[in-house]
């Protein structure tokens, strides 16, 4: 433990240390690896309780999906005209959540944003788990999931038949699977040095073997580091466009159709912004919890969180702008069906969903204009939650309220979710949390190697002050 250093308050305000407390490499390693190396049975009870709860919800998911496959889509509330409802809503919701992960890691990495280091790992993990949750829905929303492999372009010389490459759903297959793969690689590559660290600190044979294999023989040689940096940079480069492409493609599912409220060109940017918005909100939620429960106050500082608040403010406003534009264009187009659809969104049977969306996504985040709000943990926690709710409702509004009253009044309908709808969605949350908890306990949740980079950097930067302090 090195000397405690008082910093010049003025400096702190301008640019506080990202890794305060003058911690050195060893402290960082200790703190983070400590979480993993603790005796499994010594893990605090609250962890196991939470895990068993989320695990239980995960089991619920399994049950629901089994019931669904055994009985048919009819167990959900979907109907005619509302062919898609919670299923695709959840799909888009989870995919959206995934975005922040890649964004934080890749883009901020390319922009050399140091503050990302303490959150990128969990953000990436979150991406993976979110994509896993999202992936469930395109598969299980099909009427005959056992035939869902027909969605993949496998040459079938028995039928002599190809897929229809004009269908946005096929584009989705490519987009989402690519996204999943790249994110996984990106995440794992980043993990390697840390895995090696843990391997080297390992005291038990089992851990040695497990982390040994996972570390893929990393020995931290200069060559390793060079290749590692290169690989990481390339992957970051690849994932950056993906952040934009995936949700653009997902938005095509709607934009390409003829349904008023779907058939609009604003969707790609609007969806991407929304995705980042929701993604950051979700990261925020998780970090606040992690910070508190694993007490990482020194590593996840207010500075990090405040920056995220700013981003949420920006993206939230973009989304709000998009809502406005939609309305304006609907009116300006002079197309009666479009006009009706948007009036119906705001004042029709689903007005409550619409106004939930507006208040959660547009109004509440405006609080972040004030620094007091941006720096208050409880406030940002609550807002991150409401934002996630709001973003879920955004997808619900787009999908269900557009479908429930389209062209012919005779075929109008109303959607009511069934208990299976609800349990399935809850189940995916269970899946997400379970994976995250396991990750938090058994893998380095913060990129040690990168944080150390920052430590080194700051040691250098703040040297002057330390002398002053003497």
């Amino acid at each position, binding site marked *: 433990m090195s000397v405690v250093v008082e910093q010049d308050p003025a400096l702190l305000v301008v640019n506080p240390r990202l890794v305060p407390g003058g911690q050195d490499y060893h402290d960082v390693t200790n703190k983070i690896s400590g979480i993993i190396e603790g005796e499994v049975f010594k893990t605090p009870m609250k962890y196991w309780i939470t895990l068993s709860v989320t695990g239980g919800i995960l089991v619920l998911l399994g049950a629901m999906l089994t019931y669904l496959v055994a009985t*048919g889509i009819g167990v959900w509330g*979907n109907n005619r005209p509302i*062919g898609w409802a919670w299923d695709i809503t959840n799909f888009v919701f989870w995919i959206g959540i995934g975005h922040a992960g890649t964004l934080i890691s890749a883009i901020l990495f390319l922009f050399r944003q140091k503050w990302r280091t303490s959150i990128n790992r969990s953000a990436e993990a979150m991406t993976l788990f979110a994509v896993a949750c999202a992936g469930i829905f395109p598969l299980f929303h*099909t*009427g*005959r999931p056992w035939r869902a492999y027909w969605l993949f372009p496998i040459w079938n010389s028995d039928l002599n038949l190809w897929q*229809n490459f*004009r269908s946005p759903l096929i584009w989705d297959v490519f987009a989402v699977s690519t996204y999943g793969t790249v994110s996984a690689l990106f995440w794992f590559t980043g993990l390697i040095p840390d895995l090696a660290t843990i391997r080297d600190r390992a005291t038990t044979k089992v851990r040695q073997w497990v982390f040994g294999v996972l570390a893929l023989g990393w020995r931290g040689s200069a060559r390793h580091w060079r290749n590692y940096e290169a690989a990481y940079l390339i992957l970051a480069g690849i994932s950056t466009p993906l952040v934009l492409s995936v949700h653009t493609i997902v938005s095509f599912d709607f934009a390409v159709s003829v349904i008023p409220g779907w058939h609009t060109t604003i969707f790609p940017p609007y969806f991407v912004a929304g995705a980042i918005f929701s993604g950051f909100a979700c990261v925020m939620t998780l970090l606040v919890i992690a910070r508190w429960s694993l007490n990482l106050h020194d590593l996840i500082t207010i500075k990090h969180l405040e920056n995220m608040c700013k981003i949420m403010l920006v993206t939230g406003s973009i989304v709000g702008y998009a809502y406005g534009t939609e309305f304006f264009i609907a009116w300006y187009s002079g197309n009666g069906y479009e006009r009706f659809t948007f009036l119906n969104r705001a004042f029709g049977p689903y007005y409550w969903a619409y106004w939930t969306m507006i208040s959660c996504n547009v109004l509440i985040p405006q609080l972040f204009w004030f620094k007091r709000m941006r720096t208050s943990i409880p406030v940002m926690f609550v807002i991150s939650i409401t934002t996630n709710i709001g973003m879920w409702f955004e997808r619900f509004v787009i999908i269900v309220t557009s479908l429930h009253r*389209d*062209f012919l009044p005779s075929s109008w309908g109303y959607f009511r979710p069934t208990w299976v709808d609800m349990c399935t969605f809850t189940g995916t949350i269970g899946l997400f949390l379970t994976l995250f908890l396991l990750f938090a306990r058994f893998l380095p949740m913060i990129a040690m190697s990168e944080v150390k980079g920052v430590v080194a950097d700051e040691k250098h930067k703040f040297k002057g002050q330390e002398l002053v302090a003497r």
Partner: protein
Amino acid sequence: MSLISIKSKTGPKYWRSLDHLADTPEFREWVHREFPVSASEMLDGKSRRTVLKLMAASFGLAGLTACRRPVEHILPNVAGIEDYIPGAQYYYSTAMPLGGQVTGLLIETHDGRPTKVEGNPGHPSSLGAATAIQQASVLGIYDPDRSSKVLEGGKESSFPKFEAAVKALSLADGSGLRFLSGLVMSPSLSALRAQALAKFPKAKWVEYEPVARDNETAGTTLAFGQPLYPHAQYDKAKVVVALDSDFLGLDSTAPLPTKLFSKRRRVHAEEDVDKINRLYAVESQFSLTGANADHRLRLRGSEIPQFAADLATGLGALPGTLVVVGNGSGDKRTKFLGAMIKDLKSAGTEALVVAGARQPASVHALAYLINQSLGSLGTTITFTKPPAEKVDPNALSGLEAFRALAAEMSSGQVSTLVILGGNPAYTSPADLQFAVALSKVTNSIHLGLEDDETAAAAKWHVPEAHYLESWGDTRARSGVAAIQQPMIDPLYGGRTAAEMVALLIDAKDKKAYDIVKNYWLNQWPGAGKDAAAVKEKTWRESLNAGVIASTKTVENIKASVDAKKVAAAVAAEPKPVAAGVEVGFYPSAAAWDGRFANNGWMQEAPDPITKLTWGNAAMISPATARAQNLTDGDIVTLSRGNVKLEAAVMIQPGHADNAASIALGYGRERCGPVGQDVGFNAYLIRTSDAYWFGQGFTIAPTGKTHKHATTQEHGTIGDQGVNAEHQNGRPVVREATLEEYKKHPKFAEEAQEVPALESIYPQVIYDKGYQWGMSIDLTSCTGCNACVVACQSENNIPVVGKDQVMRGREMHWIRMDRYYTGAEDDPTIVEQPVPCMQCENAPCENVCPVAATTHSPEGLNDMAYNRCVGTRYCLNNCPFKVRHFNFLNFHKHDPDVAGLVHNPDVSVRMRGVMEKCTYCVQRIEEARINAKVDGRRAIKDGEIKTACQQTCPADAIVFGNINDPASRVSALKKQERNYAMLAELDIRPRTTYLAKLRNPNPELQA
């Protein structure tokens, strides 16, 4: 599937051979190999039911052996059958009697299984069309809940035991013997009746049906002094006034009136514009006739006699001057009356006034009188003498006779009651307490299709044979007789009414076939040695044609109305009382009088007006609802004297105020699972003094509520002024008055506000070979639902049940959309059939990820069910929402026997698959193959009829090759009124509409 093989490789002797088959050692052995478990149960069967088990076997087989290639057997006949081709469909003629009317039908059968009903063009009351009920009747044969056992006191018995019991009856002179039947439409049965009454002189035979046309006959008796059959010639009338007459709907069980009426409701050429007729409807509940009327006046049933009298007075048919009731000249009734009188006068011999079966005799008589004064008697309405057997003095028919019978029964004078069909214990007026009376009869015998309320109350119950599985004969009201031939041996071993009577009186012929055939052979003249041969020939010709050539339409008779008697009768009519609510009764468009309650197709066919499925409701007007402050689904108590009924209300725009209407035939207590406790039993408040409508009912909310299963969102007014029942200013159904049409012939095109989008891709040009298209004429379409059920029957469309309908998952490939226009209190209705539009730029096609739906070179929007993975993307992207998704395995709970009704030319879709209309592509392919095989000719125009087109009583649907300028469909598409729904999306629908024309009276326009 061995199922398929068996179906295809066996002949009309199908059932028999399978019985035998089911007992063969090889078969047992085979089944045992395939079925370790259920083999024994499977083969315990005797009789024809074995076939059902056999089907079960083949299903199970598929399941059990899914893992490896199943061993499947081909079971050919042992002896070949001449001219029989396995798998080919054959058509046989027959006739269906219902409610005193007969419709000649052609039944499509596959390998001995009747699968589809079509109208018989040769039969005068069908002219090739069939109604929804007739279409659905084929499902009735396979109804697994049909009675299959003889019951004695509710316990299983047998035919021999029953026959023994009948022999043991000591009937003497028959003083204690009574017969109760529905309206007898069968000459041979009438002959047997005569024999029976000759053998038992003191016996009586009563005809009673809860929904009949007694008042009409009574009306003729009153007007002409003799019972006559009136025949309204709607095609000859220019102005038609319907006094509470739903001749386009529930007042006729035959398609004839619609056929005739629609002839004058079609504007395909210049001259038609002047030919088009005008229809005035005066009624309480909104009926199909009211929906198709150019002017509709809503009056309570009890106010209509007065209205008719005023009309007659105004026309000078009744003495005296017209004293206008109602509040002054501003009043709609007054204006209506005035305009109508003028119009009728000017129409003269081309005018027609008809009264509905629900109105009392005097109104009918009055109608005849009016026609007489207009000089249209004999032109627009003709009369014939009923056939001899119907004027049989022994034939006691109608409510009075039934009431007398009930009285006799309860006073114990009846020792033996033979109920030939029907379900009187359920359908009898409440005050007659028939069920109680029945319990007083020592020997009560019930012949019925179902083990129903009556079966439970009777001592003996004998299963009746379905009309499609029994020999019989019918005589239509026009006098033309037709033979009823069975398509299949009685599945559950039922008997016909004739067989019962023959057994009872121990007649010479005891088998239905002999009874019918010998009766007719005796009717036909024939002498000399070859007489037998000639008669046999006539017999075969009659079977082939579906009508008996020797029975021509009866001559019209000249008759004149006795004005004085009519005037007296009118004067005697009780005046309507102001107090209380009037409740009107009408047959259900689905369950009729209750006999089709267990028919899934009918239960799920949305009511043409209310769009209500799986149940009925007390229909009340919005004003009444406001007054009583009731909303949709509130359960109220309707009571009057000592009868009362709890029923849910439904608000019916355009219903007469201070009145309620409720459909009969629901709330069955003892019925198959389909109809059991569906809806509310209106018979509980139908008394013989309030038979069609009763006044002075009180209506009291109970606080309970009920959910209606409607197929059209019941949007409430004030929901931002938008409402699923209105078009909200969207040019979906486009209509104009004749005047407007003359001014702007292109009004339909002009209605489209937005110019059509332009595609940036090169358009596919469909100009080679056949290009299929459809034109639907909204002017002649009445919205009768026949097409909906015909499509269901042709395309194996599943029934989903009430719960699923409420979730908006009904599967009908052709949807009958109903929109209200105008004021909520007194709107008009437009009906629009919506099948798949077969868009050339189909939005559904390019979003399907697996290319399960693609475009055929002939412009069909093909759907390959077996390729569909069920993403439902196509459904979302379909602007018409005419794609239907199998949310669940809707065939899961089908009993095996239900599979027999399926059309083998159409695959039965599994769960998780999207399905839709493809213009009956199976019929197109069949026609194509036939055309190719015989001399490589082209398919003729009209050679292919889609199921909906074939059955349409209004000939509103025309299908054909739009690439052939000479075809009917292309001619119609050239019409100025031709328009495509949502054309602005550049989807290029192949199904287009001819905009609706109404012909209102200019005077009432202002």
